[in-house]
């Protein structure tokens, strides 16, 4: 299935785009999607998404069809979700 992936803040700057379509199998988990996205670009983009162990960063906010993903989101399958918004923390004042 095709998922609409959107980025904000530093993540959008590192990606060079604010969003892109992403193909994922229905049984793919969101954690796997985030890891695949990180691997697709590498560099700063990947560093914003994943920690040194390759796990999604605890401060990465994941919003699925407008709702914050609950704890354990990385293990949830992507089915029935059209848009995922990946938000890295911002503190500009």
């Amino acid at each position, binding site marked *: 299935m095709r998922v609409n992936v959107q980025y*904000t803040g530093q993540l959008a700057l590192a990606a060079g785009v604010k969003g892109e379509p992403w193909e994922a199998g229905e049984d793919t988990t969101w954690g796997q999607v985030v890891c695949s996205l990180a691997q697709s670009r590498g560099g700063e983009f990947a560093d914003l998404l994943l920690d040194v162990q390759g796990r999604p*960063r605890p401060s990465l906010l994941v919003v699925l069809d407008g709702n914050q993903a609950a*704890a354990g989101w990385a293990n949830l399958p992507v089915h029935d979700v059209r848009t995922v918004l990946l938000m*890295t923390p911002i*503190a*500009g*004042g």
Partner: protein
Amino acid sequence: MNVNEALPDGDRAIYEWQLDVPGFGERGQLILRRSTALVTRCGGVGGNLAFSLAAAGFGKLVLAHGGELRPDDLNRQILMRHDGIGRPRVESMVATLEAFNPGVELEAVPENATEENVAGLVAKADIVFSAAPLFEERLLLNRECVRQGKPLIDCAMYGVEGQVIVVVPGQSACLACLYPEIPPNWRRRFPVIGAVAALAGNIGAIEGIKRLTGLGTSAVGQMIHFDAAEMRFQTITLWRNPSCTVCGAIG
């Protein structure tokens, strides 16, 4: 609040246009007049925010911001002035706000929030507005607001984006529920257009006014996020983290 207390005539003359706002009125104005807000810091986001709180008629503003004014502050820090370059930022802040609304009591603190001063700063206020450029400060203010049970309006921006989070301890997600660690990739220098900072600050100001007066529907427990390049706004409901080290044990 004593509902029989009348608004002083001097206040009525200044605020009469906002007294007409349904759901606000004299009661809302009296609440603001009796309220103290802490704003830290008072740069691009916080300066605009403080300006709007002064315009709204808060009784007292505690303004915390350290350091001296630099030329590269002046694309966004609306309380500052060119002739203040090299001088403490609080001097410009106080001069601007005193000239704008002398009816608001101002307490300027020439320091940023630190482990040493944060308890005292938060204790002075009925509501706290955080607009610091570092997560160390934001998470410190969040922790102290949760400890003291004070509402926190956290306002931030990046480039053409902004976000505001309304935290009511024990009722809503706190900042540490979202950011359980200091984000290692955040950089002190961030892209900023002053009007975007102003937008984020003013969304924070109206959320604070709503929280205190009961006007409208508070965005408590939500993140208001906007992308000014597309002029797209969205409101995201935030979940409390039951294992949050700051607020997980309360409420």
